[in-house]
Each structure stands twice: as C-alpha cells, then as structure tokens.
C-alpha cells in the first residue's frame, strides 16, 4: 500500500465518522430538548426535567392522530404484503413480455413527488364521489407502502430457488399451500424488512395525506406540524423521543432476527 492509498483510507474513515455524527445529530437534539426544563430550546439545557412528557397529556387530539396513523400503517402494509407477494411472484416466476416494465411501474411511486400524488388523488376521489377521509387515506397509503414491499420482495424472489416449491407440490401440497408453507417462511427476512420500511413510510407520510384529511381524520405527521406552527414547545420533542424509542425497539428486533446488513440491502 502506497502513502496515497493510506491517506485515501484515512480521509474516507474521517468523513464516514463525521457522517455518522451528522446523521445522529437530529436524534440527539430531539432527545436533549425533550428532557430540558426550558421552553425555548436552549442548548445545552439549563436543567433536566420530565415536564414535557407530562405536558403531552394536555395536547388535544394527539392520541387520535397516533391511533389513526398506526391503523393506516398496519392495514395498508398488510394489504401491500398480499398484493405485493402476488405481483412479485408473477414478475419473478412468469415469462411474459413486460415483466421489467411491471417491476419499474410498481416501484415508481417512490420517485413521484408526494404532493403531486396527493393533488391527483384528491381530484380523482372527488371526481368519483369518494368523500370518506379514512378510505381515501387508506387507498393512498397502499400506494405509498406497495413500492417498499415490492422492492424487497422482488430482490428476495430473484434469488429464491423456486424448485423447492415444485418439490413441495410433488410431495402433495397444493400450489397456494406450498406458497404459504414454503415460500413465505423462506422469505421471512424480506417480509420483515419490506413490511417494516413500508410501515415507517406510511407513519411518516405528510405530503399525500395533507390533501386527503378532514377535520376529524388527521394523521400524526400532520398533527405534529400543526402543533409546531401553533405552539412550538418541546412537548413535541418529548413525543418524538417516544417514537425514537419505538423505532429503536423495532430495529433491535429486526437486527436480531434478520441482521442489519440484510435489512438495508433488502
């Protein structure tokens, strides 16, 4: 190894460690502010307190927003897993023209501007007379979650040995039973990863949901931004700390069962 090589290597490590600090900074700030006793975000905090966690109870409509977001994320992810399994099998297994185009199309909502999708859906739902906010949100969130599920399932099925399914059928299983008993358990890591990121994307979506909510159905990100505009106090940071804790728990489970490296590579 030459000296230039060593310099390259050292520089890349320094930048990488700085990048880790850079990525963790917003999380750190949020947690510190949440435990601060000051209402004006002074850093470092003058003293520690739990007052903002207690303050959360006084926020009206917050519990409803959390419940609605959890509901939308869970139902839309479940629907996407079913639709995604079928579509991914068709792309991975079938030998018809346009499979690549289908794969691109199904993943494409990821790259579309959220607000534009929201506007388009708002106008479309109004046109066909769909006025119910929950159903509009649910349909939209399936569009949000499906690409995440498809991306990981397509990658996983690409390397899955489908002859195992044929073997199961030779041994007397029906095709749907073979899929349920052989394919899905074998692809469990992909289901966990795709499902997790789909769930998080749904929980986090603002730009599409903003056009489809009504006064009674507000998702968590919308409610949070609304609080920030009305009364920006650290109670929001306290609530985010709760969400971070939830994310850490879910990721720890994912890391234990699937492995982090496999999770990010689908």
């Amino acid at each position: 190894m030459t000296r230039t090589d060593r310099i390259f290597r050292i520089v890349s490590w320094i930048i990488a460690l700085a990048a880790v600090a850079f990525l963790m900074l917003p999380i750190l700030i949020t947690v510190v502010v949440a435990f601060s006793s000051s209402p004006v975000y002074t850093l470092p905090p003058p003293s520690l307190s739990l007052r903002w966690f207690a303050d959360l109870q006084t926020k009206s409509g917050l519990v409803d927003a959390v419940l609605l977001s959890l509901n939308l994320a869970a139902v839309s992810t479940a629907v996407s897993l079913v639709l995604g399994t079928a579509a991914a099998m068709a792309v991975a297994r079938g030998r018809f023209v346009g499979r690549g185009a289908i794969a691109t199309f199904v993943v494409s909502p990821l790259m579309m501007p959220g607000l534009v999708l929201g506007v388009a859906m708002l106008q479309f739902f109004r046109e066909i007379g769909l006025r119910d906010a929950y159903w509009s949100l649910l349909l939209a969130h399936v569009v949000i979650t499906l690409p995440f599920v498809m991306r990981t399932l397509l990658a996983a099925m690409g390397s899955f040995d489908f002859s195992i399914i044929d073997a199961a059928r030779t041994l007397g299983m029906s095709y749907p039973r073979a899929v349920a008993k052989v394919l899905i358990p074998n692809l469990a890591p992909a289901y966990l990863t795709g499902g997790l990121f789909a769930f998080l994307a749904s929980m986090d979506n603002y730009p599409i949901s903003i056009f489809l909510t009504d006064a009674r159905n507000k998702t968590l990100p919308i409610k949070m931004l609304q609080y920030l505009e009305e009364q920006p106090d650290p109670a929001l940071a306290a609530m985010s700390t709760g969400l971070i804790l939830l994310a850490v728990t879910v990721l720890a489970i994912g890391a234990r069962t699937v492995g982090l490296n496999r999770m990010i590579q689908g």
Partner: protein
Amino acid sequence: MTSTPDIIAGTPEKPRRATFDLIALLAAPGLLFLALIYALPLALLLFQSLRGADGSLGIANYVAFFSEPFNIGVLMRTLRVAALTTLLALLIAYPTAIAMNRAKGVWLTVFLVAMVLPMSLGVVVKAFAWSILFRANGALNQMMQAIGLTDAPVRMLFTETALVIGAANVFLPFMVLPIYAVLQQQQASLADAAASLGAGPFFRFFHVALPLTLPGIVAGGAFVFSLSVSMYVIPSLIVGETQQNLPMLIARSFLYLRNEQLGSTISAILLIIAISVVLGSSWLARRLGARE
C-alpha cells in the same frame, strides 16, 4: 433465477405456457389497483393542466406559468437546491460507503445503525431538530462562537445553505446505501490487480473504482434529486414562506389560495421533472450496464 425444474421435468411447450399465463395473472390485482388509484389520477392531472378555463385544450396554462418571473424564480430555486443537496449528499456519501464497505464488527454495526435509525425518525421531527440547531441562539452558533469562528451570531435559519444541509442530512442514507450495495457486490481484488499492474492510486480511482460504482451513484443521485425536488416539510420548517419551492407553491395554491388550476399546472410541471429524472436515470443505468 433457476431453470432446474425445466431441465428435470423436461416438460413440453404446451402445459408450460398454461402455467405461465396463470402466474402472470397474479400481478393483476396489484397492477389494477395501481392503475386505478395511482396512474389514472396522475394522467387526469396532466390532462387537467392542458385544459383552459373555457374547456379548450392547449398549453395556455404553461404559458401563463412561465410568463410570471416569480414562478421561474421558484422553479430555478427548486432545481438549484435539489442539485446542491444531491452534490453535498454525494460528497459525504461516497467516502462513507467506502469506509462502510471495509468496516467489520462493531464499526459496521455503528455505520448500519447510523443509516437505518434516522430513516425511522419522522421527517417532521428531523426538520424540526435542524430548525432548533440553526436558530441564532442555537447550538451551531454557540459552537462557532466558542471556537472563535465568529464573534456575533450568524443568521442561518431561513438561508438556502441551512436548507441544503438539512435536506442532505435527511436524504443521506438514500445516497450511501446504493453505493454501498454496489461496492459490496464487486471484488476488492480488482483494485489490487490494477495496483499490481502498476496503476497509481489516482489512476485506479478514476479508471477502476469510480466507473464500477457509477450505477450506485446514478441510482442514489436520481433518488436524492427527486426527493429534494419534491420536499415540502423540510423547507417549510427551515426556510419558510420567504423562499418557496415548487411543492410549497402547490400547497399554497390548493390549501390557501384555492387556485386549483394553478396548482394543477405546477403539479404537472413537478411531475414532468420527476418522470424525466426516472427515465433519465434508468437510461443512464442501462447504458452503464451495457458498457460492462
């Protein structure tokens, strides 16, 4: 994909084709759903943008949009911020992905957690955290004053620099991961081979390492650029109404101005930009794939 069953079964053409048709049908529910709830609304939106107030078809709405200097300014700012964000993310992401590729054990875990954990934190929360940091009495200013970079607080919140830093922070994992994935697939021995043949470090970087990672850069760059062009929450919290981008203009025309025609036209323009990025990057990816 394996072809073992075909070899073993040695099935003739006819039954094979029948099963293929059945398997193709499996894609139908998902495709129908997306066609109806995703593609059709977007197509209607594009159509709407071509319709004038009197119902005639034409590009009058676009002419109206582009004849307004304010709109051009917003469009240019949107593209400039997206380009700068993508560039900053790439400059940080590339060395990071290289270090990650070499990392083992605890360090690898540290890097992976740093990539995945922020992705699970909502964008509203992250943008809010950055707005706290960028305040005049915020942590960044206090730090800069402490180490003597400045004497007085520098105005950072509401500047384009702050927006680019915040956006690059939120989108960074989407740039690192594709490059990391490409690095994981290629053999480290290629660089060693080039070195053993006498290639210097710079030659190796520009002629071996960089071309091999280009597909990852294209994928990550296209993703970060399209995310930056369409971001709404981050600029709302970091720069506010003073420096609008296209998405903020869309939200304003729909939610406050109630000018749906203008909103649809801007939406169509943003959609065309997004589609161009998708098509352009997949064309680039195909060309890169063909060259190898």
